């Protein structure tokens, strides 16, 4: 389908256009292409940062709560999972309110300590990506935390006992036992995180007010991501709209599959 010129309005008459859609979106000429390439650029910044910060946070939380009593652990687990339970559109809504310059709680708190003073977060380059990152990490940390801590619970307590007899400190136990044995879990979390981060859509779409087709991604597309561009092409209709959207989707999928394949391969080598 990515090789045709169909659109929402074309009925029956769909022509094969070969690689035209691909050359168009990758050429860097015309609005569609410029927007798409820009969204890819944003994605390249967004994905690694979100993954690394989000995962280190959940890992740290899991390591901390692991040292606490069983009861406290369940309480914290229950609390940490709350943001993940909220649908993404609500997370976006809440944070949009928090991050409004002047009236938002978090934005004004950050301005007070000198971060982003006098900036509209959703329309300034880079700040917009950080904004989306904050919402996403807030939302997904609970999920990663639950999985990581479940993996930790599977590690046999004998190992820790043995280490204790050998005189290992808490920190040593963490780095020498917990993290290496957690490898398969971390692998899953990273792979899953990659796949979902590459498809980031709901949060930036809502924050940048995607229901108005002209404002997708905010001014200058500071907050635009590939999936948003795809959906924009669908809504926009026009000639080859769907074909272009498909081409963008296929490009994105190729990246996802490639990344996943690389991850699996790298892992097999290590184990």
């Amino acid at each position: 389908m990515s090789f045709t010129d169909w659109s929402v309005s074309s009925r029956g008459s769909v022509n094969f256009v070969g690689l035209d859609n691909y050359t168009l979106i990758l050429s860097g000429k015309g609005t569609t292409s410029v927007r798409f390439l820009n969204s890819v650029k944003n994605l390249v910044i967004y994905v690694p940062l979100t993954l690394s910060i989000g995962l280190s946070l959940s890992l740290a939380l899991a390591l901390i709560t692991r040292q606490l009593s069983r009861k406290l652990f369940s309480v914290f687990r229950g609390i940490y999972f709350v943001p993940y339970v909220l649908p993404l559109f609500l997370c976006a809504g809440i944070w949009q309110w928090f991050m409004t310059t002047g009236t938002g709680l978090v934005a004004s708190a950050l301005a007070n300590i000198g971060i982003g003073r006098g900036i509209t977060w959703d329309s300034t380059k880079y700040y917009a990506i950080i904004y989306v990152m904050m919402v996403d990490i807030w939302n997904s940390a609970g999920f990663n935390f639950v999985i990581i801590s479940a993996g930790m619970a599977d590690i046999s307590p004998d190992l820790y006992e043995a280490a204790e007899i050998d005189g290992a400190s808490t920190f040593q136990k963490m780095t020498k036992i917990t993290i290496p044995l957690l490898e398969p879990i971390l692998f899953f979390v990273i792979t899953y995180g990659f796949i979902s981060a590459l498809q980031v859509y709901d949060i930036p779409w809502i924050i940048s007010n995607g229901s108005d087709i002209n404002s997708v991604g905010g001014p200058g597309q500071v907050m635009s991501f590939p999936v948003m561009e795809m959906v924009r092409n669908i809504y926009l209709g026009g000639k080859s709209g769907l074909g272009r959207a498909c081409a963008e989707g296929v490009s994105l999928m190729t990246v996802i599959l490639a990344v996943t394949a690389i991850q699996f391969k790298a892992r097999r080598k290590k184990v």
Partner: protein
Amino acid sequence: MKTKKKREQWILIMLAAVWGLVCLFPLWVLFSGTFSLDTNNLTRTFFPNSLTNGIAKCKEALVTVEIAASTVHTLIYTSVTVAGILVISSLAAYEFTFYHFPLKRLLFGLLMASMMLPQVLYIIPLYRLVFAMKLADTFAGISFPMMVSALSVFVMMQFLEDLPLSFIESARIDGAGHFQIYGRIVLPLMRNGILTTVVLMFMKIWGQYLWPALVTGQKIKPISVTISNMLNPNFWIDPRTKIAAMLIAMIPPMTIYLTFQRYVIEGITMSGVKG
């Protein structure tokens, strides 16, 4: 030594509590923002102080922002979808766990691979299909495509694996057919699995945005679309009503989570650790 250990514990609790606060604080602010007087500065309202104003705002949100109507609509299509998922996935899980058939490994591999595919990819063909079937903007049109869920098959299979094969065999010796075995033995025994799937899927579909937004138009209003339209800066409403609307929209998923917390966390763990 003992006191040092105790101090360590306290520091850890404090650290853990900081993130807990980050998780819960927004919800609290949302709550206190709704139930406060119009004269309060919203940026500095941390405690609720007016019940009547809060109720008025909630009413306004339910009627003017159409939160009530959207909640009902969302409830309808979510329930239909979850019911569909249950039928399809439990049958599939039963098949995959207990029967051998040609290409089983390949089919299962495909199923698992489909979990990794981005939703956006099949959304365009699906949209075309639903549009061509004239199901756009109907409950059926929203629900059908979301009924196929590899994740729920996977979760149910985890529960079925604990079921001894001898149950099935003895039933078959007694002359029970496939559907008899499925209905009389497998379904009752996998109650927990079904409950977990229902809870997980309900929350997931409740929060869906991309697909419902694409396929609905004038008639059906998914809650996600209503909320995101409300957040549009061109759509001016009283900020407290806005907050109240979000607070109300939060109630259904939170209720489910609080009631079935054990199943939710178990289900999530299962999909992660074993997968």
